[in-house]
């Protein structure tokens, strides 16, 4: 299904998978907890988690009766993919803010 080249960054091209990834970046969660925060079913969440896990972005471990998912802390791919997304959004937000900022008239005279 996913080629090697797709591992990592490519896996986050899907918006739902990206949403799951970002929820897990904030807090390790079970399938049920993720499903509560997303407009998709538990089986659909599980499906996405499997893909993220196969790609090395996510790991899971049992805690009592449930299985808790989190970003793979040793996963270079997960870390870099996440940072890449952060900067992408941050630079776009910066551009908007810079262009909306009141123009400093001192600089007109230079």
């Amino acid at each position, binding site marked *: 299904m996913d080629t090697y080249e797709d591992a990592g960054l490519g896996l986050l091209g899907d918006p739902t998978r990206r949403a799951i990834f970002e929820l897990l970046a904030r807090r390790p969660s079970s399938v049920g907890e993720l499903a509560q925060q997303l407009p998709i079913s538990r089986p659909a969440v599980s499906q996405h988690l499997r893909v993220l896990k196969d790609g090395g972005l996510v790991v899971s471990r049992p805690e009592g009766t449930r299985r808790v998912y989190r970003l793979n802390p040793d996963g270079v791919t997960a870390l870099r993919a996440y940072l890449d997304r952060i900067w992408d959004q941050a630079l776009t937000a910066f*551009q908007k803010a810079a262009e909306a900022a009141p123009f400093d008239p001192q600089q007109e005279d230079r």
Partner: protein
Amino acid sequence: MSSASTIPAIRGTITVGVPVDQAFRVFTDAFGSWWPPEYHIGQADMAAAILEPRAGGRWYEQGVDGSECDWGRVLAFQPPHRLVVTWQINGEWRYDPDPEHASEIEVRFTADGPRQTVVELEHRLLDRLVGGQALRDGITGGGGWSAILELFAKAAANQE
């Protein structure tokens, strides 16, 4: 842990329609006005993100409950052309105070005409973030790590 960087740096470029001084000022002085508020590490919701405008300054967030969480330090503050800060948030989204585990972000501002600025960002030394963790957790065999790096190198090469 002192080997050359194996994880490719993240690079981003954006062109903004303002003079270089203004671009630098918004990026630094007004950092908290544009940083996406969902990206923060504190337990509490983020009230402000602050980049102190001097070499040696702190770079941190303030929570709505008044708590503070460091993100890194300002290494170089050279208005209006260059900013270098450390990013010390590890893969578990916690601040790692050890400078050996600090990744670096360099931002360059280049005037492209009187009212246009090219902003280039590089987030580098990413190995240090992961290296710190691998050291702490002990590298658990199985080649998972090098396998992931290899996949990553391929993915990165394909993006060129």
